[in-house]
């Protein structure tokens, strides 16, 4: 059931929100991706093992995932804008305090924990508010916002290198913290939408269509309560459960190819600079994939769930074929395909979540989904590493990633079947959940779905 908010502007100020979300994605995810440049510097400064230094990123990623549901529930209570601004301040403080560089544990706490929390509090509401602001053009808006990560990651690589060469790693952290403070600027621009639940309830009072008065008042009393708190009932809905399982399997596979691409390339005898160019190719086709998929999904030619299933199948095909590459050119081509379809998947998977759970629960769903998905992200790379060690070849990692994705596609297909069955059943019954505040427009939508001219229940 695609979630449609008729009060979603679908344009206008929404594009300002998309641009700020674009920048938030860049200032959060891209910084996390490029943090690897600081590894060697920090490791040498504190004279620590590489594994101990890499805990910084692990802490950041863990905090990011665990903070996502917290951020979502805060969004529901306070506005998206407030949470994003808080996230910006947290991320900024993490980097700026990291400048002091007192000890390794200090770095874990600042560039690890504080940064991860800040990124979580910025990223989650930014993604969410774009979906709130758009309904028909949601796929395109999400896709454009998500390209921020690619665009910024592309430029941050050389930029961070330059910063480190000019100011040392400490000064670079301070300046990057300042740059992350701009997340607050983006947050300020994210005006909360006029529709809150109380507004919905009061509005529907004044526009009650004849009949059904009693049942409508009951629903009005219920809706403010469910919107204000984190909705744990999501876990009971089979569609969400299936989508969450898909998320776990997909996450298990997503982190593996970037990890093993470089070693695989080295094992094929490809030079270091050419290997680096592979990663650039990945970033560029990722960008292109996200935009193209957003535009295509926007045409509403295919259902988003079907589109996602197709992209997943295409990624898994690229991954299963990638081990066939034996020189730079073939590896680059397969990497290009993988990166492109990865971009398409990322562009559309948030929109599919909105379609699966509906906008009223979207914030909670996003947080919960990220939390559940993170388990896949933690299990995936070590499991892949184990398989690679057992087989003795990096190609096994790609086979594993491809196979996991094929499995996840199975869950998507099941989800789609459930949705279709529910759609057929509900065509003869009245819809259960109140979703729209404008009954007149809802009437039009129901007529479009060939309802039998019933009264509207909002």
């Amino acid at each position, binding site marked *: 059931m695609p979630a449609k908010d008729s009060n979603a502007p679908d344009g206008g100020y929404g594009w300002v929100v998309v641009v700020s979300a674009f920048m938030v994605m860049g200032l959060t995810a891209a910084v996390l991706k490029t943090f690897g440049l600081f590894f060697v510097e920090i490791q*040498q400064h504190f004279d620590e093992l590489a594994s101990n230094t890499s805990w910084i990123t692990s802490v950041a990623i863990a905090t990011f995932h665990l903070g996502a549901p917290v951020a979502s529930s805060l969004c529901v209570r306070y506005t998206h804008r407030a949470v994003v601004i808080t996230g910006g301040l947290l991320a900024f403080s993490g980097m700026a305090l990291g400048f002091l560089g007192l000890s390794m544990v200090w770095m874990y706490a600042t560039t690890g924990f504080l940064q991860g929390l800040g990124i979580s509090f910025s990223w989650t509401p930014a993604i969410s508010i774009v979906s709130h602001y758009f309904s028909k053009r949601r796929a395109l808006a999400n896709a454009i916002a998500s390209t921020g990560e690619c665009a910024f990651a592309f430029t941050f690589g050389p930029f961070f290198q330059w910063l480190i*060469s000019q100011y*040392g790693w400490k*000064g670079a952290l*301070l300046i990057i913290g300042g*740059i992350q*403070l*701009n997340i*607050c600027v983006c947050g*300020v621009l994210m005006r909360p939408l006029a529709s809150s639940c109380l507004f919905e309830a009061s509005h529907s009072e004044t526009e009650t269509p004849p009949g059904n008065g009693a049942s409508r008042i009951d629903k009005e009393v219920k809706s403010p309560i469910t919107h204000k708190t984190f909705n744990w009932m999501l876990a009971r809905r089979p569609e969400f459960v299936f989508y969450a399982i898909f998320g776990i399997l997909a996450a298990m596979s997503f982190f593996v190819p970037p990890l093993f691409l470089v070693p695989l390339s080295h094992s094929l005898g490809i030079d270091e600079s050419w290997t680096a160019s592979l990663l650039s190719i990945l970033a560029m086709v990722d960008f292109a994939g996200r935009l193209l998929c957003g535009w295509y999904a926007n045409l509403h030619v295919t259902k988003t769930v079907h589109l996602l299933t197709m992209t997943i199948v295409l990624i898994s095909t690229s991954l299963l074929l990638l081990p066939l590459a034996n020189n730079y050119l073939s590896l680059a081509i397969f990497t290009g395909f993988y990166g492109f379809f990865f971009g398409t998947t990322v562009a559309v998977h948030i929109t599919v979540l909105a379609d699966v759970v509906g906008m009223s629960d979207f914030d909670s769903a996003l947080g919960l989904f990220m939390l559940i998905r993170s388990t896949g992200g933690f299990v995936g790379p070590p499991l892949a590493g184990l398989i690679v060690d057992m087989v003795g070849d990096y190609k096994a990692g790609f086979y594993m990633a491809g196979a996991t994705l094929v499995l996840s596609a199975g869950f998507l297909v099941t989800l789609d079947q459930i949705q279709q069955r529910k759609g057929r059943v509900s065509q003869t019954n009245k819809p259960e959940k109140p979703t729209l505040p404008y009954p007149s427009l809802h009437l039009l939508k129901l007529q479009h779905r060939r309802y039998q001219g019933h009264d509207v229940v909002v």
Partner: protein
Amino acid sequence: EKNITLDSATRIELSCRLDSKYSHLKSLRVTWKRGNETIRHINKTENSWSIQLMILDNSKLGSYSCVLQGEEEISAVFHLQVPKIEGKEKPIISYEGDTVVMTCKSFDYAPIAWTWYVTNGSEQIAINDSLLADKYVINRISANVTHLKILKVTKEDDGVYWCEAAFELGKSIGKLKLKVLSLMVPLKPFLAIVAEVVIIVTMVFLYEMYSKKKEKRAEYEKEFDQVEQL
């Protein structure tokens, strides 16, 4: 040309072999030279000429060449050297009051001793860490790696440092550069960015408050008009 690394006294044999494509050359006379000096002891086989050297000290290191004199002059050179030391090409950036650790590594061969030098003007001054124990700490982390830790770095510590590895057959040096920045250096762009953020956020807030007031005023005026119409 060939580079040969030697770290301790040894006996070494260098030989030059003539490739079969030159076997047509008739009057073959091979001389081994070191600079201008000719070396006598030559062992000769059918196609190769070799010398044996006893390398006991630094004076014996250098470039040895075998020269074939005949219709064409063909030569090959051997460079006998002490092991190379790796310093750091890019300058190490540090801040005032901070602690810096500079690392020098020797590949494959362990030096007998390490010495650190700091460049003062045009002179190289050895760093004595027992004399200035609260400023410099020299640690030999492993056989091949040495650390120079400078505590409470100041602007005067800015400059070029040398780490010297002493081998039985000679010394080898690596170069490191230390750049000391004051805290103001990154602070300036940082404060500029923070100021920019504060300004933009304030502007956006003011604009929103202003447009909300305008909306409210427009609503009041509308209601006022409606009341008037009644």
